[in-house]
């Protein structure tokens, strides 16, 4: 091995080397190498040329040309630069994400704008509370333990945000799903413009779902309560349960009691709730999808970085 690369050659050879290096640098520049990379590569090329030329017996332009032919031409250097630095995603991933977004947006719009989709389902319940009438306090106290036999399934709707509410549980689950979906979407950070758009679209979708669910929950519970004081005998005559509950059989039929009638209308936007639930699930899927896409991008970036690192056309000789 020789280290005599710094010899000066004939002006003809020096000119040829200079021209070659200039052209070499121009190609590297077109391929996206920055100045420091160009400097380093060009310096090494020149050093390599000079060393080989110095080692050769005949120091002529012809020898120089033979040396250059054996070396990798500048076009062999990896095509790096802006085009390779762009991130890419798998088309299938893009397609499924877009489909989900379109579907989700469509459902959202349909729920909010198309009246016939807001189908409501109404359950009615009528209950009678019977108790001993207290003339001093005008209170009604349960006559006996059987008072608890009253069908409470609907009275538990009284507090719309309480966990005991059956439809409320659905709503809370919807909100939880939506919240999780939003969180996932926020976590799925990406710098790509169209994915940002997807994120925003999904967020809007989920926010609309939240708003709709909040509106819907207000419509749950309508009740009217009326009280009347009468004798047990009268109450028995009007009682749909035919006197089987609410008061003792041993009571005086002429005792005054209070009959409280509760009329409850439970209106549920049936389809809407299922749809909002469905949309929240879509949101979650979108969130996961975006995260997957992000991971896929990271992997692609790594691959592309590796491609930048290792020239695509590796010469083995």
């Amino acid at each position, binding site marked *: *091995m020789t*280290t005599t*690369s*710094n*010899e*000066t050659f004939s002006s003809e050879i020096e000119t040829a080397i200079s021209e070659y290096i200039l052209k070499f640098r121009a190609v590297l520049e077109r391929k996206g*190498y920055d100045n*420091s*990379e160009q400097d*380093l*590569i060009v*310096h*090494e*090329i*020149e*050093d*390599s040329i*000079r*060393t*080989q030329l110095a080692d050769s017996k005949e120091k002529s332009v012809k020898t120089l040309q033979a040396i250059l032919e054996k*070396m*990798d031409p500048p076009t*062999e*250097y*990896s095509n*790096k630069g802006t085009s390779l630095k762009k991130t890419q995603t798998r088309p299938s991933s893009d397609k499924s994400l877009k489909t989900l977004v379109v579907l989700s947006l469509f459902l959202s719009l349909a729920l909010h704008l198309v009246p016939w989709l807001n189908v409501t389902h109404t359950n009615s319940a009528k209950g009678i509370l019977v108790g001993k009438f207290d003339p001093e306090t005008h209170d009604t106290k349960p006559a006996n333990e059987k008072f608890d036999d009253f069908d409470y399934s609907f009275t538990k709707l009284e507090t719309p945000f309480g966990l005991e509410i059956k439809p409320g549980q659905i709503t809370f689950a919807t909100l939880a799903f939506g919240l999780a979906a939003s969180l996932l979407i926020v976590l799925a950070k990406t710098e790509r413009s169209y994915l940002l758009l997807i994120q925003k679209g999904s967020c809007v979708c989920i926010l609309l779902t939240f708003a709709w669910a909040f509106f819907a929950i207000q419509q749950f519970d309508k009740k009217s309560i009326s009280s009347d004081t009468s004798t047990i005998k009268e109450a028995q005559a009007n009682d749909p349960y035919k006197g089987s509950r609410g008061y003792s059989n041993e009571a005086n039929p002429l005792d005054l009691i209070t009959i409280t009638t509760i009329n409850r209308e439970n209106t549920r936007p049936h389809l809407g709730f299922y749809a909002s639930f469905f949309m929240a699930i879509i949101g979650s899927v979108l969130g996961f999808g975006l995260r997957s896409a992000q991971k896929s991008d990271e992997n692609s970036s790594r691959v592309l970085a*590796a491609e*930048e*690192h*290792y*020239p695509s*056309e*590796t*010469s*083995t*000789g």
Partner: protein
Amino acid sequence: MYEVWTTQLVKGLAELALLHVLKQGETYGYEVMQKLSKYECLAFGESTIYPLFAKLVAGDFISVRTKPSNSGPPRRYYRLTKLGELRLREMDAHWGEVIKSFEQLKESKI
């Protein structure tokens, strides 16, 4: 097809090979090419090795200094940095795992 596969295979090894050469001591580009050319499967072209030098310098895995010469332009000498040594150890370890896995795969009858 076979050539494509062999090219792709050695492509990933260029950096490891270069770091191993630099581990032996400070050296310059052409000398690295000469050393690698002694190994048939590691005889990379300039278009592979020289851009790698640039990348490794940019990543602080190798340092460069120029030595003035009596005539002509100065020559650049490269040396492995601490970070480069660490990277080499990691790459060696991973390469060892790859070899080991392949041996296990070949011996496996599943």
